[in-house]
C-alpha cells in the first residue's frame, strides 16, 4: 500500500534539529558531493524522499547505499542555502537502518569496518590497526586484502604489534554498554 505516512520527520527534527520542509530541492548539495556519482540516490533525492513523508520512501532511504557512502565531509551543508544539516540526517538514518536491520547489502564492508573499529576501541580504548584489520577480515572474509601492505607498514615502523591499552578500561567498557542500542 502506498502513501502510508511515517512520522520520522518529526523525530528527525526533534533529535537533529533538521526540518526537511526547508529544502527547496536546489541540488547544490548533490552538485558538490564528491560521492554523488557512486550513490544510488544523491543527497537532495534522499531529502526529497523524506519530504514525501511516506513509510515506503523512508524504507528506500534506510535501505540505500547512499547513507553508507556519505563521509560527513560537510561540503553539502556548507553550501546549502537553507543550512540543512545533511550529514546529521545521514547519521540518523544510518543508526535507524541498523536498528531496523534494513542496511544495504552493498554496504556490508563499510559497516563491518565501522564495527571492527569500534570493537578495537571497546577493548583497548585506542585504534589498534592489527586488531582492526583482523576483525574486518573476519567479518568480511576478504582474507587477502591489503596483505602486501602489512609488511611494508611494519618495516616503516607504522604497525604496532601490541595495542596500547587505556588504563581505565572499565570506564571505556561502561561507556559502550551504556550507549548500546
Amino acid at each position, binding site marked *: 500500500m502506498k502513501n502510508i505516512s511515517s512520522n520520522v520527520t518529526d523525530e528527525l527534527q526533534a533529535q537533529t534539529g533538521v526540518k526537511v520542509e526547508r529544502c*527547496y*530541492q*536546489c*541540488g*547544490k*548539495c*548533490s*552538485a*558538490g*558531493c564528491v560521492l*554523488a*556519482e557512486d550513490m544510488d*540516490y*544523491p*543527497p*537532495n*533525492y534522499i531529502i526529497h524522499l523524506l519530504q514525501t513523508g511516506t513509510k515506503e520512501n523512508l524504507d528506500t532511504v534506510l535501505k540505500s547505499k547512499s547513507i553508507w557512502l556519505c563521509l560527513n565531509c560537510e*561540503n553539502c551543508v556548507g*553550501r*546549502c*542555502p*537553507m*543550512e540543512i544539516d545533511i550529514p546529521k540526517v545521514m547519521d540518523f538514518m544510518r543508526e535507524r537502518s541498523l536498528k531496523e536491520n534494513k542496511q544495504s547489502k552493498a554496504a556490508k564492508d563499510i559497516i563491518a569496518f565501522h564495527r571492527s573499529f569500534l570493537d578495537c576501541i571497546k577493548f583497548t580504548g585506542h585504534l589498534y590497526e592489527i586488531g582492526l584489520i583482523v576483525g574486518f577480515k573476519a567479518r568480511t572474509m576478504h582474507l587477502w586484502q591489503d596483505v602486501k601492505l602489512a609488511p611494508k607498514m611494519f618495516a616503516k615502523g607504522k604497525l604496532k604489534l601490541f595495542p596500547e591499552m587505556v588504563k581505565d578500561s572499565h570506564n571505556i567498557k561502561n561507556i559502550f554498554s551504556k550507549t548500546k542500542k
Partner: protein
Amino acid sequence: MSKIGVFICHCGENISATVDCQRVAEELSKVDGVAYSIDYKYMCSDPGQTLIKQAIKEHNLTGVVIGSCSPRMHELTFRKTCAEAGLNPYMCEIANLREHCSWVHEKGEATTEKAISLVKMLVEKVKKDHPLTSIQVPITKKALVIGGGIAGIQASLDIANCGHQVILIEKDPSIGGHMSQLSETFPTLDCSQCILTPRMVEVAQHPNITLYTYAELDSVEGSIGNFHVTIRLKAKSVDPKKCTGCGTCSSKCPQKKIPSEFNAGLGTRTAIYVPFPQAVPNKPVIDKEHCNYYQKGKCQLCKKVCPTDAIEFDKPDELLKEDVGAIVVTTGFNVLKTDFFPEYGYGKYKDVITGLQFERLASASGPTLGEIRRPSDGQIPKKIVFVACAGSRDPAKGIPYCSKICCMYTAKHAMLYQHKVHDGESYVFYMDVRAGGKNYEEFVRRAIEEDGVKYVRGRVARVYEKDGKLIVKGADTLLGGAPVEIEADMVVLATAGVSNNGAEQLAQKMHISYDSYKFFAEAHPKLRPVETNTAGIFLAGACQAPKDIPDTVSGASGAAVKVAGLFSQSMLVREPLIAVVNRCAPPLFSTCVGCFMCETACPYHAIEHEEIKNRNGDVIKTVAKVNPGLCQGCGTCVAFCRSKSIDIQGYTNEEMYAEVVSLLNN
C-alpha cells in the same frame, strides 16, 4: 451642561465576543452628563453612522464617545460623521475597546468592567474638551526628486508636466542610473539607451525641472508642504557654463586606468571624465580621489588644454538651500559583486562576472563595443554558463528574498549571446523560472525553444579555474540530482539585488523607515506602495525592492500623482492637535517666562520667539510661540515647561487629568 452621546460598537464579534456591549451601554447611560447611550453591531457602517448623526440632532448632543476599535482605524471616520451632523469633530473621542480590551482579554466580568471604565474615562475627557478648528498651512508647490534613474526621471517629468516646479538631484555625474548601463531590455529587446536618452534630454530641457548632478541631499527639515532641504553640490572642478563638452580634457588626462563605474569595473576611465557618451549633462567632472592634481599637486594638463578655460580647481562644495512641499525618493539599488561568493572564487576569476557586467559586454557602447569577449584574454567564449539565484533565495548568505528580475535578464543574456555567437553554447542553471509579467513567459520560452539555450534545473555548487577554462560543478535535479560538470569559457552570475550604498544614512536623514535589508519601507505594502510613513515623502522604484522597468515607471507615475494631488490643494489642512502657548490679558500676556526650554526640547524646531510690544514699539516680554505648520503634537515641550504655559490642544493637561481621576474613582 454636557449632553454626551455614548455609542458602543460590537465590531461584528471582535468586541462583543468578550465584552458585554449591551451592559456597557446600559451602565454608561447612568453616568452623569450622558444623555444617550446605545450599542450597535457595526458603528462605522452607513446605518451605524446614520444612527450617530440622528442622535446628535435629536438629543442636541454636545459631545460623543464611541467605544470601538483603535482610533488609528476610524477616529477620522467618526469625526467626519459628527462634523456632518453639525457637531465640532474634536468633541468626538474614541475609547479603544478592541485592541486595548476585547482582543487582549478573555471573556468575562472583568473584561466588561474594564470596557466600562475605559468609556467612562473618555466621557470625563469629553466634558473638558473644547471645539477646535483645523489649521491651514500654505504648501510650497515645488517637489524634490532624489535620484536620477528611470524612476526619478519619470516622476520628475510627470510632476513637471502638471505644471509644478521640480528639483532633480543625482549623485553621479550623469542621470540615467542602471537603465543606462543595460544593453537591451526585456521583454521587447528594446535598446535601453535608445528609449532612455530621449527622456533624459527631456528632463534637461524641461522648463519646470532644475537638474543638479553630482549633488546629494545634505539635510532635510520641516514637514509635509514645508520642507527645508539643503543640497550639497559637490565640486565638479569644471564650470558647466563655460564647458562645451568637447572632450579634449579627458583625451589628455594621464590617469587612464581608473576602473569605470559605468562599465561595472570592466573598462577604464580617466580622472576627468564623462561617464558615458550619452551622459546628461554631457560635461565632465574631476574625480578628486584619482586626480594627479588633487592627490599630488601636479599635472593640471586639462586646464592647459581646455579651449574655453572651463577647469576650476579647488572650488569648495556648494550648499544650496531650497524650500519644497514634497520629496520623492528614487535612489535605486545595487547588485552584489562576484567577491561575495566563496564557492565561485571570491571574485578572483576574471571570467566569472555579474549580470550587470555582462550587460556592459553586450552593450554597443561598452568596453568591447558589444562583442561578448572574455575579460581575461579577450577571446570570444564558446560556452557560457549562466548561474541564476546567485545569492538570492539564500538564507545562509543573509538574502532570503527573490531578486525578481534575474530570471528574465538571464534569459535575455543567453538570447543575446546566442544571437551574437551563433555557434556558442549556453547553459542556464536555475531553480524556478519566474516570468510573471506581460509577455514575460513567452520571452523565456523563446530563449529555450528558438535560441537553443539549455536550461538545467539545479544550483551550482562551485566554480574553479583550470587551464584557462572554468569548471562548473552543478546538478540536474530533474534527473534525480545527477551531478553535471561543464567546462565553460565564461560564467555569468545573476547576483542578488541589494540596497544602494548610503541607503541607511539617507533614510535616517529623512526620517523614513527601512527594513533589515536597507530597502525603504512603504506605508502599507499593498494599499500604499508609493508613500512612506513620513507624510510628504514618497517612494518609487528599486529603492523599495528589486523591480523591473514597467513596475518602476508605474510606481514613479504613482508617486508623481500623489505629489500633484498634494499640490492641487490651495492649503494643507492639518489637525489642530498641536501645542499652544497660553495667552492672557495684560499685564501678564502669558504665564510663559521666556526660558525657551521648550525650544531646546522640540525635535521639529517648531518653537519660535514672539516679542510682545507696547504701543510705542518697546518690547515688554519675549515669549514662546508654536509654529502651527511644523508642530507634530509630540508633547515633549509640555513635559519640559516648568510654568505649565504650553499645552496640547485636544490633549490638554486638564483633559488628561480628568481621564486619570475617572479611572482612579472607578
